[in-house]
Structure formats: structure tokens, C-alpha cells
């Protein structure tokens, strides 16, 4: 098992956002987490690389316990890619430098090697010609693709995607989803929070439906989309399809 999450709890003040979440990911798998807003999906992702500290529960990346107080969390984070909803590219750095920073400062790579690797990742997301551009000079879709290249360059064991297309104009969503689909096909292990049901249906190996801090149902896309076991799953999917139309 590549990632194992057991009985994760998180509380913000009075509100319990995660109420005992458990699941796992095998190497090469893509799992998609869906569910209404405010049900702890993003919190769950952020607990996995401890950008948010969980209150209770344990997480393992392969045989290393991430939640152990003794673990070097910087080491762990270097092995887990994170793609944010609002990209969070480093504003003062070009696309190339955004991708290069982790290679040079975390992996200790020399400049030449890091540059070659960064250019290769930028090419992989179709942005080799934008290496010298600053984030403000790129469209949202391009920025998100750079941020995926930034994550990829670190050779992560797993990439977490936190609503990667929610901040994008509709016409820019496709280019980001296409990159993610290629990644999934190439065998990258991915955990994706998204409202893109078309992507979930065609790319996910398994779908996790979360509501109010718990996992209500998980299973292959066919089950979740065509014969959901939980009435709340069916209701959520109906509302989503009403909102976005049947094809997504």
C-alpha cells in the first residue's frame, strides 16, 4: 500500500471537520474524492502532508508514519506533490524557476541538471515555450500546468490535487484535466478532490464520496455513478448533474 489513512480526525474550534476518515491508495492508483462543499475534502488532503495538523488518527506513506512526531516532515512533503486550487506559483519567479526551486533547494541538484529537468517537466505539460514567463503573464490554465510541472519535477510518490480546476475559467479547465489524465495513464498515483464528474468517471479507479466529515461510500465509478448504495450519493450526483449538465 502506498498511502494508508486510518481514523483521521480534525476539529476547527467547535466544528468537527473530519470525523474518523480511513482509506488507502495503491501505487499507480487514481482516487477521486467528491462531495458537497465544506465536508472536509480539502482538510483531508492538507492533513496528508500535514499542512494542517490532524488531531487524531494515523497516516502512512509506504512504511513511514507521516503522523509520527519523530518524522522529518520536510522529507515527507518532498515526496508528496500538492496542487492547489489557486495554483500558488511563486510570484517573483519565472515558470522555470518555480519548477527549479525544489530541485535545487530540497533535492540539492546542481543548476544545470535542475534546469534540464525543469525544462523537461515544462515540456511535459506543454509549456516549454513559457519557461521565462512570470506567473502574472500566464493564463490560469497555464499557471496550473506549471504548478503540476513543479510537483512532478520532485519525482513524488503521490500527487494530491485540491480542486485543481475550481479557480479556472470554463474554457481553461480542459487543458488542465488533459494533463492530469495523461499523468494518471502514465501510472502516477493521484488523489484528486474535484467537482469535475466527467474526469472522475473516466479517470478514477475509485471514487470516494464524502459528506460532513465522513466517507459515506466508495467504489468504482460505475457503482458510484450508476448504482450508488447510499441515498445521499445519489442525491449529490443528481444535484451536480442538474447544475453542470449531464456530460460532466
Amino acid at each position, binding site marked *: 500500500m502506498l498511502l494508508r489513512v486510518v481514523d483521521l480526525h480534525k476539529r476547527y474550534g467547535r466544528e468537527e471537520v473530519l470525523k474518523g476518515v480511513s482509506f488507502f491508495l495503491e501505487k499507480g492508483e487514481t482516487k477521486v474524492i467528491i462531495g458537497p462543499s465544506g465536508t472536509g475534502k480539502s482538510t483531508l488532503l492538507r492533513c496528508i*502532508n500535514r*499542512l494542517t495538523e490532524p488531531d487524531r488518527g494515523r497516516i502512512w506513506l509506504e512504511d513511514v508514519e507521516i503522523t509520527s512526531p519523530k518524522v522529518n516532515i*520536510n*522529507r*515527507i*512533503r*518532498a*515526496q*508528496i*506533490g*500538492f496542487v*492547489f486550487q*489557486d495554483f*500558488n*506559483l*511563486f*510570484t*517573483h519567479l519565472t515558470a522555470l524557476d518555480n519548477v527549479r*526551486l*525544489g530541485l535545487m*533547494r*530540497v533535492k540539492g541538484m546542481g543548476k544545470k541538471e535542475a534546469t534540464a529537468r525543469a525544462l523537461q517537466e515544462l515540456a511535459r505539460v506543454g509549456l516549454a515555450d513559457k519557461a521565462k514567463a*512570470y*506567473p*502574472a*503573464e500566464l493564463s490560469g490554465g497555464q499557471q496550473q500546468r506549471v*504548478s503540476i510541472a*513543479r510537483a512532478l519535477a*520532485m519525482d513524488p510518490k503521490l500527487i494530491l490535487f485540491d480542486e485543481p480546476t475550481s479557480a479556472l475559467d470554463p474554457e481553461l479547465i480542459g487543458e488542465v484535466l488533459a494533463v492530469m489524465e495523461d499523468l494518471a495513464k502514465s501510472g502516477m498515483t493521484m488523489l484528486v478532490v474535484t467537482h469535475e464528474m466527467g474526469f472522475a468517471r473516466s479517470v478514477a479507479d475509485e471514487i470516494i464520496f464524502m459528506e460532513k466529515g465522513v466517507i459515506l461510500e466508495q467504489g468504482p465509478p460505475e457503482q458510484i455513478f450508476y448504482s450508488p448504495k447510499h441515498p445521499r450519493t445519489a442525491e449529490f450526483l443528481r444535484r451536480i448533474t442538474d447544475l453542470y449538465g449531464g456530460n460532466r
Partner: protein
Amino acid sequence: MNLVFSWSWLPKLAEGLLLTLELTAISMSVGAFFGIVLAITRIYARGPLLPLYLLASGYVHFFRGTPLLVQLMTIYFALPTVGLRFSPFSAGVLALTLNTAAYQAEYFRGAIQSVRAGQMQAALALGLSRLQALRYVILPQALRLVIPPWSNELIYMVKGSAVVYLIGATELMGQAKNIAARTFRNFEVYIVVALFYLALILVLTLILRWVERKTRVPGLGLPGRA
């Protein structure tokens, strides 16, 4: 009224100008270093490091809350009674540095805190330590943002350094005072000195504007016109 200027004042005034520059340069740069340290401490020192936060905050409040002149007099006239003796120049440098560090701490704090939180998150998510994130991601942005308020502080310090003539330092103001006392040409001497300050500040302002333009990055600060 009959104005009388004399070229003979120039060597002394130039000497004074040089000392003013030295005073300002040392106190501004050392003050910037401590200002950054204070700002980072005030923002990030929590939990077990809370005493450091309290110390840094206490420092900032104390040195912003008391007059520079009082600080200077204390250092030069009161500290010798406990065995700490300074030359006028070093007392001046010390007072100006301690004072500007407190003000600069607040400018840096504002600049660091105006860097969006997601920048730190993204840096940590890459595996950078918090210190690395500060060094490679937060500070490079904050230092660009701080230039306009910082240039304000620089101008203030150039002029503020004039107070050290009161303890006998012979910077620009001290030299002017001497020349005026010797020649009784108060009006002329102070006009010339005012022009010296004005010229110095204009030059420094232009240099900082140049730095600001040189380090400008699209999407960071200077958003054109609001």
C-alpha cells in the same frame, strides 16, 4: 539684507556630509538586518518561542514609543554612569540603529504579511523548511514590497541623524553649527546646509526608485494605477 557665502565653508561641510552619510548608512543597514529579524520573530515566534515574540514586541514598542532624542541622551550621558562610555559618533550610530531597527521591523512585518499565505504553503508543500521558505520565497517578495516605505525611513534617518550634533558629533549639522558660530552667518550657512540635505535625499530617492524599477516583477507590487 546682504548675503555672504564663502567657499571656505565647503571642506568642513563636505566632511560633515560624509559623516552624515556614514551615520545613516551604518544605522540603516544594521537596522535593516535587525528589523528583519525582529519582524520574523514577531510573526512566527509562537508556542515554545513565545518569550522571543514578547521580547521582540517589547523592543519595538519601547523604541517607537520614546523620543530618539531621549534615547540618544541616555546612551551618551546616562550609560557612562554605569561604566559604558561612547564617542559622540558611536553613541549616535547606536541610538539611530536601535531606533530605526524598531521602525523597520514594522515596515518589514507589513511587507512579509502582505505576501499571500499560499506562497508559504506552496513552499512548505515542496519540502522546503520554514527558514528556506522565508529565504527563497517570502523575503524576495517582501523586500520588493518594502522599498517604498523603507525609502521613507531612509529619508527620515538622513534628517534624523542631525540630532547627534547635540552630543558634539561633527556631522553636517554639527559642522554648520560650528561655522555659524564662528562667522555669525547663520542665515547663509543654514541655507547651504538645507540644500546639502535636499540634494543628498534627492540622490538617495532616485537610487531607490532605480532599484525598485530594476527588481520589479510582473504581478508583484506596483500594480500600475488603481
